[in-house]
C-alpha cells in the first residue's frame, strides 16, 4: 500500500502540470493542435488513475484547454470526482473546472447535489466559499430547489466571508427557483443592516438586481435604503443605492421629491466622478418622474445640465461619453435645456471616437425640430460620405431615417426633400439597411398622398437605373429598394409620366438576377402598369398601341416563368396566360381595359403593425384548442436561444439564386428548346419576330463590364436633396416675410389699441408651414382593438417569474424544501433519538399553527398597513431643509422567519402551543389527519371520521372531546374539549371542575386547590364553538378510567342571566394513552424476538369491511401504525405514553378478524384488545 502511494506520487512528478502544458504549447507553435491532442490523450490516461492528485492535476490542465476552446465536457464526471476530494487544493481545482464547463444541460450535474451540500456545511470556511463560488456559476433549478435552504442558513453564518457569498448567490437561486424568494426575503432584508460592510454591499447588490426588474415590489424598502444612503460611506454601495432609487422614482414621485435634496448635496460634495455621475443620473430620473406634476425644478435641471456639460467638455473621453449618455436622458423630458448645447453635441459628431459619435447621434434624435431638421440631416449626409467602416455608416443611415420618421414624420415639412434623401441613401455601397429604406419609401408613398406623384417619378428613375443597383459587386441589401420602387410604380401607376418606359424597365432581362421576392413584386406590378397603360391606350383609341404593349408582355414574361423561384414562376405563368387571353380578345377588337384594371381596383390602406395582434378574440373561440389531433411526431422548430452576443444575420435575405443554378437553368432551357424544335408534335406558340430574337442569345448573355465607381453616381433626373434645402430656405424666408408683415400690421393695430400684449417674436416650430398640404394617413387598426400595450413583454423573460409581492405575509406552505428521509417499506430504523413525525399527534398542532398563522396574518396585516402608512408618512414629509434629513423610521424586522427545521422546532412549538392553546378556535371538526400508514399502500380512502366523541350535551351547550397522549411529558394526556353554544344566549363565566381520582389528576394553574374549577378562557356567543385544552396526569395507564366533571356557566340573553350546569364523564380509554409511533420492520422483529412481551389475542366475526379500511380504523381509533402488510395480514405497532410497546398481528379471514397482541404489560394489552373488539364489532 505504502509502495503504491509512493509510486503514485512518483508517477505524478513526471506528469505535466499546468505550467508544463503551457510551456509545451508555446514550444509547439507550428503543430499546436497536434500537441494538444497528444496532451489530451495523456490527460485521459491520468484521469483513469486512482490518485486524486493526478486527477486534479489533469482537471486543472483541462480548464486551461477549455479556455483555448477545447471541449472538456467528456470529463464532467472526473471533475465531480475532483470536486469531492477532501483537500481544499483539489476541491478548488474541481470547482473551478465545473464553474467553467458545467451548465444546465450537463447531465451529471445532478450528482453534485449532496457533495455541494456537504461542502456548504463544511467546517472550513474556504471549502464552503469555494462551493458557493462554483455553484454561483452552474446552479440549475434542481440544485437551487434542493440547496436553497442550506444557502439560506449560510446567510447567518458567523464568518462574514461566507455570509456575503451566501447573500450574493441567493440572487442566482431566486432566478432559478422563484418560489424561494418570499421565504428568503426577510433574511435578505436583515442583511442590509449587517455589521460587515461586505455583506451589506452584497445584500444591496442583490436587492438592486431584483428591484431593477420588478421595482414596484421593493418600494417599501425605500426608507431603509434612504437611511443607508445618508449613512453609508462606501461609494460602491452608494452607487448601487442611487441607481436603485433611479429605478424606484418613476413609481413614486413623492420619493423623488425627497431625494432631490440629498442628491444635490452629494453632487456638490463628492469628489468621486462615478458617484457624481450616478447622482446626476438619478436626479434626471427624478426630474423625469416629476415633470408632469411639478414644473419648477429648473434649478436642478440647470445643475445637471451644467455638470454634464463639464463632463462632456472634459478631456477624458470616458467622461465625455457618459456625459452624452446622461444628456440623452434629459433630452426626453427637457429638450429645451439640452438644445441650448447643440453646438457641443454637433462638435462631438466630429470626434475621433466612434462611441462618442454614436452617443452624439442619439442626442441629435431628440434635438431636431421642423426648423433644423434639414440642416442636421444635411450634416449627417456629409458624415455618411466621409464615414469609413460600414457599421458606423449603417448606424448613420438608420439614425437619419429614425430622425426623419419619428412621431409620424412630425418634423418633415417637405416630403419631396425626404424622398430625395432616401433616394440618395440608396447609393450607399454595401449597406445592410436596404430594407429600411424600402420600408420608408413605401410608408411615405402610401401615407402621404400628396407626394405620390413625385415619389412615382423618383421610383421610376430608380427602376430605370436598376442595373446600377443590381450590378454592384456585392449584391446586398440595397437592392431591396427596388422592391419598394417596383411596388410604388405599379400601385400608383396613374401618376407615371411615361408608363411605357417604366414597363420596359421592369421587364428587362437583368431583372431576373434580382432576389426572388423582388422579382415576384416586379411581376405583380408589371401587370398593374400594364392595366393602366391599356386603359390609357384604349381611351385614346390607339388599338395598335395597346396590342403592342400586350405583345411586349407576352414576349418578356416567359423569362419569369423560367425563374427558379416558385413564387415568381407561379405568378408569371398565371399572368402570362391572362395576357395571352387578352391578346386574343384584342385581336377580336374587344375592349378589355376596363376589366383588366378592375383586377386592381380599390386602394390599399396601411395597416398598423400590431393590428393583427389587437384583434380581440371572439367569444367562444379557443385558439389553443386543436382543430385536428396533432401529429404524433411533429418536428419542433429549433428555437434559438436569445443570446446577448448574437449576429443579426437572419435579416439578410436568403433568396439568392446561385450562379450555378442559373447556368444550369440556362443549359436546360437551351436543351429543352432544342428538343422542342426537333419535336414535330410540339405545338409552338405563335411565332413572332421578337420571339425569334429572344431565341438568339439573350441580353443576359452579353457580358457586362462592371465599373467600379468610387464617386457616387448622380442619376440623371434625380434631384439632389441639397437643392431642396435651398428651396426650402427661400420658401421659409418668404413665409417669414409674409408673417412678419402680418405681425407688424397686427402690432400696429395693437399699438393703436394701446394694449400691452407682449407676444414675443419667437420662431417656434409651428410657424413653419409644410410645403405640401400633407395628409398623413394613419394606420388602420381593427375595430374594438384592445388598447393594452402588453405586447412588448417577453413571455420568456426569466425575471418575470420574480415579480412577487414581498410585503404579503408568508403563508404556511411557503417554505424552502428541506431534505427529508424517504420512508420506504423496508427501510432501516433511523437513529434512536430522531423524533418521528406523525400526523396524528400533529393534528392539534396543525390547528394551533393555523391559528397562530392567522394571528400572525393579522399582525402582519396590521404591520403592513402600518408599513404602508409609514411609507406614506415618510414620503409625505417635505424634504427637510437641513442637509441631514430626519432619520427615517425603519420598518421593523419583525417579519416572521420562515421555518426551516421543522422537526427540530416542533418541540418548542408544541410547548408554546400548549400555553397558547387556551385561545384555540375549534378547527374543523373533521379529522384533518388521515390515519398514518407507515409504508402502507393507499387503496381507498375512508370517509373522514372525527376523533372527537360526544361528552355531554343539553339545550345550551354541546361538549365533544378528544384525548391524546402527550409526546413531551410522560404520563400526560391532553384533553381537547370543544364547546358549542346551541342556545340564543351568550355563555360566559364557564368553569370546568373535574373530580380528580387517585390515578388521574388535572393539571391546574398554580395555587388553585383541587376543588376549584378551571375557567374556560373564552365566552361563547350564540352559535359559536371553541376549543379548550386541558392536561391530565395519569399514574397508571394499564386500565381505562372515568372522571366525573361539571361544566358550570352563565347563560345571558335579553331576558336575563341564568346559572347553568352540565355534568359529564371523561372516559380515558387505554387507546387514548397510545401514541402513534412508526416502527421499522427490523426493530419490530427485534422487539418480538426479545421475548419479554406477554401475549393475548381476540377474534371478531362477521366483518365485511375491507382489510385496508379495517387497518385504517385501528390506526385512527387506537393510535397504531402499520409496520408491514402482507396480503390480508398486517403487523402494527404503537407505544404508550409510559413507554409500553404494543405489537399487533392482525389477520383477516373470510368473515372474521383475529388480532394477536404482544405487550410489555398484560393488563394494558387485554384492556386494549377489549376496546379494539368493541371498535371492530361495529364494522
Amino acid at each position, binding site marked *: 500500500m505504502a509502495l503504491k502511494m509512493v509510486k503514485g506520487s512518483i508517477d505524478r512528478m513526471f506528469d505535466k502540470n499546468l505550467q508544463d502544458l503551457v510551456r509545451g504549447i508555446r514550444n509547439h507553435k507550428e503543430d499546436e493542435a497536434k500537441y494538444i491532442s497528444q496532451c489530451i490523450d495523456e490527460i485521459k490516461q491520468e484521469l483513469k488513475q486512482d490518485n486524486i492528485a493526478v486527477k486534479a492535476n489533469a482537471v486543472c490542465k483541462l480548464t486551461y484547454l477549455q479556455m483555448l476552446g477545447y471541449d472538456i465536457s467528456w470529463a464532467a464526471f472526473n471533475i465531480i470526482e475532483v470536486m469531492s476530494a477532501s483537500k481544499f487544493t483539489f476541491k478548488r*481545482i474541481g470547482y473551478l473546472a465545473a464553474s467553467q464547463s458545467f451548465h444546465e444541460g450537463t447531465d451529471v450535474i445532478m450528482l453534485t447535489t449532496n457533495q455541494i451540500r456537504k461542502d456548504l456545511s463544511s467546517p472550513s470556511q474556504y471549502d464552503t466559499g469555494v462551493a458557493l463560488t462554483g455553484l454561483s456559476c452552474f446552479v440549475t433549478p434542481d440544485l437551487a430547489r434542493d440547496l436553497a435552504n442550506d444557502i439560506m442558513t449560510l446567510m447567518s453564518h458567523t464568518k462574514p466571508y461566507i455570509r456575503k457569498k451566501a447573500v450574493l448567490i441567493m440572487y442566482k437561486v431566486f432566478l432559478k427557483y422563484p418560489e424561494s424568494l418570499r421565504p428568503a426575503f426577510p433574511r435578505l432584508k436583515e442583511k442590509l443592516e449587517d455589521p460587515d460592510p461586505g455583506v451589506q454591499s452584497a445584500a444591496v447588490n442583490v436587492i438592486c438586481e431584483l428591484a431593477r426588474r420588478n421595482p414596484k415590489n421593493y418600494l417599501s424598502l425605500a426608507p431603509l435604503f434612504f437611511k443607508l444612503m445618508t449613512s453609508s460611506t462606501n461609494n460602491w454601495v452608494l452607487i448601487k443605492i442611487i441607481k436603485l432609487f433611479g429605478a424606484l422614482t418613476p413609481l413614486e414621485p413623492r420619493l423623488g421629491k425627497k431625494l432631490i435634496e440629498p442628491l444635490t448635496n452629494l453632487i456638490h460634495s463628492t469628489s468621486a466622478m462615478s458617484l457624481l455621475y450616478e447622482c446626476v443620473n438619478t436626479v434626471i430620473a427624478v426630474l423625469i418622474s416629476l415633470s408632469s406634476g411639478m414644473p419648477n425644478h429648473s434649478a436642478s435641471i440647470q445643475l445637471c445640465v451644467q455638470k454634464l456639460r463639464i463632463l462632456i467638455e472634459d478631456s477624458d473621453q470616458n467622461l465625455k461619453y457618459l456625459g452624452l449618455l446622461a444628456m440623452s436622458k434629459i433630452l426626453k423630458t427637457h429638450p429645451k435645456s439640452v438644445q441650448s448645447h447643440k453646438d457641443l453635441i454637433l462638435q462631438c459628431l466630429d470626434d475621433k471616437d466612434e462611441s462618442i459619435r454614436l452617443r452624439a447621434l442619439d442626442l441629435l434624435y431628440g434635438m431636431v425640430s421642423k426648423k433644423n431638421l434639414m440642416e442636421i440631416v444635411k450634416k449627417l449626409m456629409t458624415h455618411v460620405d466621409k464615414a469609413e467602416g460600414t457599421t458606423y455608416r449603417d448606424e448613420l443611415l438608420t439614425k437619419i431615417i429614425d430622425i426623419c420618421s419619428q412621431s409620424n414624420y412630425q418634423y418633415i415639412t417637405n416630403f419631396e426633400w425626404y424622398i430625395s434623401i432616401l433616394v440618395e441613401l440608396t447609393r450607399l455601397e454595401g449597406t445592410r439597411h436596404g430594407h429600411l429604406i424600402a420600408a420608408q419609401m413605401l410608408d411615405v408613398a402610401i401615407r402621404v398622398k400628396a407626394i405620390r406623384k413625385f415619389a412615382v417619378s423618383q421610383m421610376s428613375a430608380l427602376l430605370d437605373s436598376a442595373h446600377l443597383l443590381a450590378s454592384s459587386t456585392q449584391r446586398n441589401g440595397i437592392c431591396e429598394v427596388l422592391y419598394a420602387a417596383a411596388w410604388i410604380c405599379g400601385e400608383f401607376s396613374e401618376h407615371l409620366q411615361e408608363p411605357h418606359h417604366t414597363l420596359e424597365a421592369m421587364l428587362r432581362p437583368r431583372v431576373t438576377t434580382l432576389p426572388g421576392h423582388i422579382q415576384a413584386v416586379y411581376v405583380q406590378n408589371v401587370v398593374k402598369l400594364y392595366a393602366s397603360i391599356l386603359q390609357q391606350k384604349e381611351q385614346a383609341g390607339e388599338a395598335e398601341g395597346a396590342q403592342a404593349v400586350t405583345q411586349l408582355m407576352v414576349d418578356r414574361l416567359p423569362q419569369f416563368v423560367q425563374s427558379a423561384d416558385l413564387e415568381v414562376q407561379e405568378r408569371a405563368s398565371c399572368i402570362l396566360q391572362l395576357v395571352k387571353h387578352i391578346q386574343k380578345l384584342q385581336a377580336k377588337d374587344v375592349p378589355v381595359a376596363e376589366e383588366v384594371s378592375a383586377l386592381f381596383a380599390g386602394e390599399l390602406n396601411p395597416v398598423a403593425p400590431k393590428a393583427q395582434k389587437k384583434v380581440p378574440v371572439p367569444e367562444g373561440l379557443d385558439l389553443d384548442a386543436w382543430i385536428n389531433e396533432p401529429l404524433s411526431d411533429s418536428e419542433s422548430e429549433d428555437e434559438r436561444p436569445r443570446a446577448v452576443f448574437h449576429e443579426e444575420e437572419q435579416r439578410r435575405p436568403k433568396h439568392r439564386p446561385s450562379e450555378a443554378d442559373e447556368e444550369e437553368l440556362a443549359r436546360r432551357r437551351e436543351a429543352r428548346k432544342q428538343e422542342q424544335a426537333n419535336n414535330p408534335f410540339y405545338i409552338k406558340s405563335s411565332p413572332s419576330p421578337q420571339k425569334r430574337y429572344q431565341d438568339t442569345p439573350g441580353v443576359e448573355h452579353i457580358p457586362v463590364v462592371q465599373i467600379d465607381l468610387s464617386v457616387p453616381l448622380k442619376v440623371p433626373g434625380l434631384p439632389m436633396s441639397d437643392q431642396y434645402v435651398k428651396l426650402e430656405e427661400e420658401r421659409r424666408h418668404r413665409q417669414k416675410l409674409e408673417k412678419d408683415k402680418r405681425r407688424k400690421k397686427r402690432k400696429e393695430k395693437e399699438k393703436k389699441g394701446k394694449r400691452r400684449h407682449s407676444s414675443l417674436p419667437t420662431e417656434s416650430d409651428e410657424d413653419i408651414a409644410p410645403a405640401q398640404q400633407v395628409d398623413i394617413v394613419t394606420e388602420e387598426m381593427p375595430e374594438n382593438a384592445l388598447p393594452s400595450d402588453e405586447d412588448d413583454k417577453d413571455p420568456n423573460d426569466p425575471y418575470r417569474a420574480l415579480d412577487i409581492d414581498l410585503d404579503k405575509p408568508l403563508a404556511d406552505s411557503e417554505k424552502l424544501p428541506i431534505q427529508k428521509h424517504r420512508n420506504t417499506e423496508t427501510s432501516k430504523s433511523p437513529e434512536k433519538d430522531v423524533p418521528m413525525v406523525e400526523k396524528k399527534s400533529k393534528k392539534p398542532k396543525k390547528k394551533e399553527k393555523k391559528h397562530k398563522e392567522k394571528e400572525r396574518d393579522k399582525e402582519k396585516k396590521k404591520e403592513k398597513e402600518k408599513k404602508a402608512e409609514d411609507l406614506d408618512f415618510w414620503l409625505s414629509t417635505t424634504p427637510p431643509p437641513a442637509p441631514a434629513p430626519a432619520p427615517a423610521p425603519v420598518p421593523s424586522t419583525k417579519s416572521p422567519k420562515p421555518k426551516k427545521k421543522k422537526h427540530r422546532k416542533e418541540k418548542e412549538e408544541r410547548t408554546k402551543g400548549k400555553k397558547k392553546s387556551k385561545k384555540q378556535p375549534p378547527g374543523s371538526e373533521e379529522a384533518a389527519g388521515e390515519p398514518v400508514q407507515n409504508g402502507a399502500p393507499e387503496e381507498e380512502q375512508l370517509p373522514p371520521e372525527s376523533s372527537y366523541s360526544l361528552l355531554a350535551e343539553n339545550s345550551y351547550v354541546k361538549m365533544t372531546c378528544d384525548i391524546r397522549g402527550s409526546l413531551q411529558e410522560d404520563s400526560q394526556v391532553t384533553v381537547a374539549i370543544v364547546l358549542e353554544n346551541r342556545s340564543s344566549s351568550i355563555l360566559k363565566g364557564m368553569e370546568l371542575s373535574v373530580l380528580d381520582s387517585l390515578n388521574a389528576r388535572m393539571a391546574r394553574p398554580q395555587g388553585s386547590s383541587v376543588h376549584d374549577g378551571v375557567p374556560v378562557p373564552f365566552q361563547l356567543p350564540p352559535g359559536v364553538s371553541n376549543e379548550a385544552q386541558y392536561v391530565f396526569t395519569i399514574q397508571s395507564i394499564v386500565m381505562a378510567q372515568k372522571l366525573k366533571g361539571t361544566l358550570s356557566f352563565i347563560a345571558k340573553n335579553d331576558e336575563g342571566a341564568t346559572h347553568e350546569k352540565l355534568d359529564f364523564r371523561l372516559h380515558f380509554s387505554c387507546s387514548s394513552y397510545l401514541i402513534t409511533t412508526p416502527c421499522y420492520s427490523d426493530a419490530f422483529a427485534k422487539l418480538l424476538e426479545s421475548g419479554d412481551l406477554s401475549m393475548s389475542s381476540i377474534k371478531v366475526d362477521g366483518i365485511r369491511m375491507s382489510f385496508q379500511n379495517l387497518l385504517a380504523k385501528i390506526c385512527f381509533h387506537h393510535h397504531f401504525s402499520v409496520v408491514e402488510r402482507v396480503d390480508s395480514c398486517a403487523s402494527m405497532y404503537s407505544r404508550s405514553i409510559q413507554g409500553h410497546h404494543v405489537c399487533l398481528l392482525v389477520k383477516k379471514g373470510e368473515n372474521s378478524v383475529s388480532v394477536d397482541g404482544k405487550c410489555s404489560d398484560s393488563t394494558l394489552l387485554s384492556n386494549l384488545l377489549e376496546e379494539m373488539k368493541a371498535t371492530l364489532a361495529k364494522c
Partner: protein
Amino acid sequence: MIQAILVFNNHGKPRLVRFYQRFVKEIQQQIVRETFHLVLKRDDNICNFLEGGSLIGGSDYKLIYRHYATLYFVFCVDSSESELGILDLIQVFVETLDKCFENVCELDLIFHMDKVHYILQEVVMGGMVLETNMNEIVAQIEAQNRLEKSEGGLSAAPARAVSAVKNINLPEIPRNINIGDLNIKVPNLSQFV
C-alpha cells in the same frame, strides 16, 4: 450584472475567459475574437466603453475595458453596473494581481491561469461584484494559499521537486521507469525539496 470577463493580450491570445452566462464554446471563442478585434482598433486615448457591434445584442450591454501594457481586460456588463465603477473594479483587480504575483506581467497570467481565476473569484462571483476592498481580497487569497500550502505535503512536494528538476533543463525525462529505478530515485528526491 457582469456578463463576461475576458483578458487577452495584444495579439488576441486569451489569458482568462470567464463567462457568467452560458455560451457554447464555439460562440465563446468567437466572442473573444470579435471582442479583441473591436478593442484592438481603438486608440488608447479614446473612451473605454464600447457598445453596438454585431457582438452585443442588446443596448443594455456594454463592453468596458482597460488596456495595460500587453493585456486587455474587458468586462461585459449590463446597465445595472456603473460604468466608472467597473473601470475602478478593473483597476482593483489588476492591482490585486500585482500584489499577489509581485509585479505582475503577462507571463504570470500565462502560467498561472488557475491562480488568476482564484483571485477573480474573490472579486466577482457569479457575475456580481463580491468585494471591492483590495486588502480584504488579498487577505482572503493569502489565507487560501496558506491553507493550500499546509495541505501540500506529499502530493505537492514531488511536484515542486520535479519543476526544480525541469528547470535545470534536463533534456528529456523517460516516462516509463520500471520499479527498480524508482526505488533508487526516491531518496534522492527529497534533496530537492
